[in-house]
């Protein structure tokens, strides 16, 4: 692109230029994790197509969420309520389409859930921006509120904390295939993941809105001073995150055929972890959607890969932690080596 010479510049190899992309460092982490399991568990089925589909599906649900969460993080905000949002959107859809309770068509149910999620997202954003409170605490409170409302609501309607028996409804609805079906041997969620990642990545890199996201996250004040509508940008991001949570909820509920009030719990931290592994800064203003997707893939692979190894399951979490740490350290090391120029 730039055919411009300057005597104040060392030449930089194309390889190093590649490593400068925030997302590409994390690919190294991915490769290491993959190799680890290929060696440790190659003979117990880790390398089969079944296993690939298996971890792709787990990564996909996290990845859909992480793509939106990454955008929100680049925009300088957090959303801890996103896990509870999955839970409540899931039971909401399940109750609404359930033959014993809602009787509604799936499309309407999903629409209602989406509207609800957008309302919550809007409220989150509005509160954060109006009060100037950190999004961490506002959405932490919202996490409790949604989780509690979910339990209360579900028990009120069903007397139980699990809404099951959706199998027939799902089987009859063609719309359900959009969330729970499969294409070319891969579950719908993987295609959603791919689509969401590509679209949000384009939004981030190729639209003015994306530029505003970077601005709002890097320094909201400075961005506002040069005319970025920070308020609108951040509210949109909060709503987008809630929508992503609803999509994940729809996928989970429809593919499992039941919804549990605890679903989604803890996903908020996983999504943040995936984004950070993929190069997003917690302080905002820097990161990439593709990186977050790769981060999700790493986490999904670690979670599922461990089952194929012979490691004592008691020590399971040690390995998860160790692999996350290893992946980010490697990623970071590679990135630093080649990008001393960038901060």
């Amino acid at each position, binding site marked *: 692109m730039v055919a411009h010479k300057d005597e104040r510049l060392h030449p930089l190899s194309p390889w190093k230029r590649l490593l400068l992309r925030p997302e590409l460092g994390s690919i190294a982490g991915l490769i290491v994790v993959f190799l680890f399991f290929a060696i440790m568990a190659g003979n117990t089925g880790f390398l089969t197509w079944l296993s690939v589909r298996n971890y792709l599906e787990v990564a996909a649900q996290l990845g859909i969420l992480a793509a939106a969460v990454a955008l929100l993080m680049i925009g300088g905000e957090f959303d801890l309520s996103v896990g509870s949002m999955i839970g409540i959107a899931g039971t909401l859809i399940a109750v609404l389409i359930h033959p014993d309770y809602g009787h509604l068509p799936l499309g309407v149910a999903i629409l209602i859930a989406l509207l609800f999620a957008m309302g919550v997202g809007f409220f989150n954003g509005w509160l954060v921006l109006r009060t100037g409170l950190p999004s961490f605490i506002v959405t932490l409170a919202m996490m409790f509120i949604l989780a509690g409302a979910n*339990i209360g609501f579900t028990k009120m309607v069903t007397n139980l904390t699990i809404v099951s028996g959706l*199998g027939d409804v799902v089987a009859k609805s063609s719309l359900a295939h959009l969330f729970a079906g499969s294409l070319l041997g891969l579950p719908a969620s993987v295609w959603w993941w791919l689509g969401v990642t590509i679209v949000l990545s384009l939004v981030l890199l190729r639209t003015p809105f994306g530029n505003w996201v970077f601005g709002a996250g890097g320094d909201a004040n400075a961005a506002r001073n040069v005319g970025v509508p920070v308020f609108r940008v951040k509210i949109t991001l909060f709503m987008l995150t809630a929508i992503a949570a609803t999509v994940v909820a729809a996928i989970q509920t429809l593919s499992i055929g039941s919804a549990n009030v605890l679903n989604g719990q803890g996903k908020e931290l996983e999504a943040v972890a995936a984004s950070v592994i993929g190069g997003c800064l917690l302080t905002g203003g820097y990161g990439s959607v593709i990186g977050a997707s790769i981060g999700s893939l790493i986490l999904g692979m670690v979670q599922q890969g461990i089952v194929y190894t012979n490691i004592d399951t008691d020590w399971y979490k040690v390995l998860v932690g160790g692999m996350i740490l290893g992946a980010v350290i490697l990623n970071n090391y590679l990135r630093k080596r080649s990008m001393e120029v960038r901060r």
Partner: protein
Amino acid sequence: QQLRIVVVTHGQASDPFWSVVKNGVEQGGKDVNVQVEYRAPDTFNMVRMAQLIDAAVASRPDGLVVSIPDASALGKSIEAAVKAGIPVISINSGADVAAKLGVLLHVGQEEYVAGQGAGKRMKAAGVKNALCVNQEVGNVGLDQRCKGFADGLGGKVTVLPVKLSDPTGIKNAVSAALQKDPSIDGILTLGPTAAEPTLQALEASGKLGKIQFGTFDLSPAVLKALSEKKMDFAIDQQQWLQGYLPIVFLANYKRYGLLPANEIIYTGPGFVTPQNAAQVIELSKKGIR
């Protein structure tokens, strides 16, 4: 003056098993006209639970119902309640220590024994290598179910830890475990949260019917699977009674000084099988079984 009874257990309100207990508590309250309050920590947490019991005692209820998964952690708080003159009934776990702590009587049954029952049942079906799917490692009740299961089976039991909030993760972990060790011929899940995704994993890998599959606790989906013969059994502790009975007992004890003479009232284990599943389904939908 209406009587007020507080129930403190180790099972969070969101747990399918405990939500049925809570339904029993509430029905009991309605039936004998007492005010009931159900309290539990968010996760399996003995420190929190002891604090909740302390708070309950401080609120001077007319009766207290507790579960005792860890006697040495909760003993002090329960003894304090007894000392304060509050009648206490224990439910679910703690049958062995109840009397020692001054508890009037125990309703329910040891998790370990129930697990053992499941193990024996699978052993009879010829299972040699089983998987125990644990959705909350560290929850002692669940640990004991797995342990009892292993002892009852006498064969190889692998514990598969999964995250209870991620059904897809559970499903895929089970199918990965099955893929890794094709000789697995039995699966026990410790609750409907894990049972439903496991069912899907079995369906997807075409092993349905080839593997003995049982679960703890009921849900409509579990019962439906049972009646369709997709599962072999579900262990039913009739936990609704664990909630209902103590309220009735305490109310009568408080009002009239009446109490059953048994020290332990067993509510289970009952086994629900494809044969008797159909009749339970409606009750399960109402949150009674």
